[in-house]
C-alpha cells in the first residue's frame, strides 16, 4: 500500500496497514538536507529535495509545498526579507492605511515570482512521486492573507472598527487564493491545504462572518477540480469545530490544545481529523515514550478516519528518533497491528 492509497482508504474509513502521517515539516526539512532556510523559501528545487528526503527517511505520507505565509503577500508587493538561515521577515505592512487598498495589484499565480515557485514545486513533486505520495499545495485563508498584508494587529482591530472595509479586502484575497489553489491543482496537487491561523483568535461569530465563507469558497473551487481540501487553523479551535466542519474540508487539522476525542465523537463520520500531538512539548521536547503514547492516543480517540500528525509544524530541532517513533506507534494501533 503506497502513501496515496493509504490516505485515500483512510479518508473513507477503510482498512489500512497503518494510519497515514501527514506532519507539517518545513524548517526541519531544510536543515535535514543541510540547506539554509532562505534556499528552502526561494528555490523550489530545495523545497522539493528536502521534502522527498524527509518523506523517505521518516516515512511521512505527504510531500508539501508549504513554506511560509508570504508567498501571495510578496507577489502582492509586500516587502519580505530572507535572512540566510532564518525565517522570512516583514517589517512593515503593505496596507498600513486603509486607503492603500486602492493601490493593491492583484498577483497572478503563473507570473508572481513566489507563487509560481510554489506551483513549480508541485509540478516537480508530480514528476518525482505523483500517484505514490499525496502532494499538498498550500494557500492562505482570505483572513490570514489580509493579516499578512495589513498586519495581525491592524486586522484584529479592523474586525471591529472597519468590518466593511475588511470584507472588501477579503474579497480581493479570496479571488487570489482561489486562482492560486487552481494553479497548484492543475500542476498536480492532490490536496490543497489552507492556513487560517488568525481565525483561532476571534470569536465564533466573527469566524462565521470573516473566515468561514471564504474558506468555503476556496474549498468549493478545490473540489470542483478534483482535489482534496485540508483546513489548518493553529491554536485553540474548540469553539469553532462545527463551523470548521462546515467549511467543506476533507481533512481538518486540530492543534494540540483541541479535544480530538470530542471533535471526532461529534463529526468523525463527516470529516477526517488530523492531529493532534503537541509539536513542542511532545515532538520537540518529549521522550520517544511520550511520542509513542501521544500518537497512539490520538489515533485511538480520532476514530477510523483520523490521520496522524502534530498539531502544527513539527519544529526544527525535533529529535529524529521522535519521527521514527511516530511510525512505530502507528504500526501498532490496535486492530491493524503489523
Amino acid at each position: 500500500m503506497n502513501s496515496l492509497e493509504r490516505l485515500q482508504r483512510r479518508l473513507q474509513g477503510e482498512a489500512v496497514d497503518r494510519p497515514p502521517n501527514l506532519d507539517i515539516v518545513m524548517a526541519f526539512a531544510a536543515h535535514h538536507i543541510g540547506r539554509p532556510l532562505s534556499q528552502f523559501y526561494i528555490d523550489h528545487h530545495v523545497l522539493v529535495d528536502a521534502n522527498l528526503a524527509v518523506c523517505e527517511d521518516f516515512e511521512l505520507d505527504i510531500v508539501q509545498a508549504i513554506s511560509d505565509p508570504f508567498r501571495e503577500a510578496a507577489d502582492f508587493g509586500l516587502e519580505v526579507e530572507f535572512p540566510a538561515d532564518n525565517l522570512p521577515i516583514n517589517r512593515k505592512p503593505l496596507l498600513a492605511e486603509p486607503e492603500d487598498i486602492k493601490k493593491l495589484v492583484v498577483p497572478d499565480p503563473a507570473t508572481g515570482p513566489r507563487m509560481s515557485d510554489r506551483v513549480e514545486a508541485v509540478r516537480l513533486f508530480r514528476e518525482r512521486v505523483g500517484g505514490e505520495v499525496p502532494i499538498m499545495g498550500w494557500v492562505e485563508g482570505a483572513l490570514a492573507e489580509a493579516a499578512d498584508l495589513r498586519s495581525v494587529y491592524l486586522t484584529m482591530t479592523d474586525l471591529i472598527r472597519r468590518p466593511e472595509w475588511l470584507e472588501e479586502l477579503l474579497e480581493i484575497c479570496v479571488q487570489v487564493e482561489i486562482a492560486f489553489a487552481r494553479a497548484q491543482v492543475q500542476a498536480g496537487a492532490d490536496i490543497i491545504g489552507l492556513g487560517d491561523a488568525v481565525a483561532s483568535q476571534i470569536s465564533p461569530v466573527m469566524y462565521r462572518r470573516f473566515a468561514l465563507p471564504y474558506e468555503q469558497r476556496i474549498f468549493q473551487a478545490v473540489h470542483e477540480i478534483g482535489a482534496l481540501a485540508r483546513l489548518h487553523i493553529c491554536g485553540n479551535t474548540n469553539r469553532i469545530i462545527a463551523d470548521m466542519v462546515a467549511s467543506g474540508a476533507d481533512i481538518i487539522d486540530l492543534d494540540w490544545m483541541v479535544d480530538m476525542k470530542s471533535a471526532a465523537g461529534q463529526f468523525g463520520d463527516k470529516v477526517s481529523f488530523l492531529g493532534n500531538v503537541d509539536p513542542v512539548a511532545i515532538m520537540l521536547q518529549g521522550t520517544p515514550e511520550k511520542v509513542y503514547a501521544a500518537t497512539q492516543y490520538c489515533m485511538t480517540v480520532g476514530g477510523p478516519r483520523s490521520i496522524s500528525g502534530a498539531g502544527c509544524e513539527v519544529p526544527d530541532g525535533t529529535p529524529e528518533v521522535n519521527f521514527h517513533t511516530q511510525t512505530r506507534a502507528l504500526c501498532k494501533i490496535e486492530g491493524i497491528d503489523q
Partner: protein
Amino acid sequence: MNKNIETIYKGILDGDQHLVAQQVTDALNAGLSPDMILKEGLVAAMSEVGRLFENGEYYVPEMLIAARAMQAGLKLLKPGLAETGVKAVGRVIIGTVAGDLHDIGKNLVGMMLEGAGFEVIDLGTDVKPEAYVNAVREHKPDIVAMSALLTTTMPNMIHIIQALEEAGLRKQVKVIIGGAPVTEEYARKIGADGFGYDASLAVKAARSLIG
C-alpha cells in the same frame, strides 16, 4: 459608582477610545482624583476584560480595542498620577526575544499589565540579552517579561536569564515568560518565576509575583 467613571468603565469594555478620553477629561475637570479614576474606572474595566477573555466571551480583537481605549484614558491620567505621587503596582520590562519580530502577544500582555496598574517599559521586538540587562540596570523593574512566538526563538529566553545572572541582576527581578510554544514546564525548566498562558493569565502571574 460615579457617572463619569461608570461611562469610562463601559467605554473601555466597548473599546471606544474617544469616549473614554472625553470622559476621563470630564472626570478630571469635575475634580475626581486621578487615582480614583484609574482604579475604579480603568483598572476595574480591564479586570473585567480579562474575566470576559478567560470566559471565552471576549477574544483578541475585543481585548485589543478595549486596551487601546484604556491607554487613551491612561495617557490623560499619567501627569496627575505623577503629581499626586501615586505609585504603580509594580514596574515591568517587556519584550519579544532576539530573532523574533512578533509583537501582538507582547503588546497585549503589556497593555493588560498597564490596565492592571503596572508601569510597563516596552523594549519592542528582537530584543537581545544585553538590551534586557541594560534595561534592568536603567529602570530597576520588579519583573522582566519575555515573549516568543517561535520554537526557534524560544531558547533565547534562556540566554536572557543567563545574561541577567552573569550581570548579577537575576535576584533583583522576577522573570515571567509566555508565547505560543511556551509551556509552564518550559518556564520551570529554564528557571523563570512565572508563566502566562495568555494575556489575562500573564497579569495574574505578575500580580502573584509582586505579592
